[in-house]
């Protein structure tokens, strides 16, 4: 999947992946896609929940050897 900015949160437990995602998202322009790498399994539920609450679009998640690759599109400022 295409993306504009990548965020590496590997080795970080809850709540850091979400906290860093929120921070990084502020740097993006509306319409850009953020790719977040995480090895915290909780991210599978957390990222869609975060996107939903903040009004951003969760595009999907890929799983690769215990790594989760999430894609979120910035919808609101």
């Amino acid at each position, binding site marked *: 999947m295409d993306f504009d900015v990548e965020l590496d949160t590997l*080795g970080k*437990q*809850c*709540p*850091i992946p*979400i*906290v860093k995602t*929120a921070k990084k998202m502020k740097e993006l322009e509306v319409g850009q896609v953020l790719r977040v790498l995480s090895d915290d399994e909780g991210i599978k539920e957390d990222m869609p929940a975060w996107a939903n*609450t*903040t009004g951003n679009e969760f595009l999907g998640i890929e799983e690769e050897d215990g790594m989760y690759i999430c894609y979120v599109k910035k919808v609101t400022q």
Partner: protein
Amino acid sequence: MADKATIVVFSGDLDKVLAAFIIATGAAAQGMDVTMFFTFWGLNAIKKDKGPIKGAKNWMQKMMGMMNRGGASRLPLSKFNMGGMGKMMMKKIMKSQNVTTLPELMEAAIDLDVKLWPCKMSMDVMGVGKEDLIPETGNPVGVAAYTAEAAQSKLNLFI
């Protein structure tokens, strides 16, 4: 306007304060406007690591300040603390599991503009002055300041 969240931190136990800050940072990361209200033993979480307290006015408060020094890195576990042994082991396990430490989590909370309000009455009882608390702490407040925030909050917890 952003949704509000309020958390009363009554406990000064490491595990409970950690839970409070995980929820606070999580809510703030989701765009909520978060206020934490520190009362009684909870004040220990926002005390500077350098003890003993300076605000103590009499020998009883001084003694309490010595035994109850506080500071984020000094909080005991609510269970199996065993004079600090259990806490040491828990910290080791948490580190091996990549769990963020309380001081790091507090830094993240401050970075996300989570408000840290100390309870004035508890400060008076324990002889804790503003100078004994970390500089990011807000002005001392009473119960009305908390209930006013809580009344407008979608998420309200007592830990």
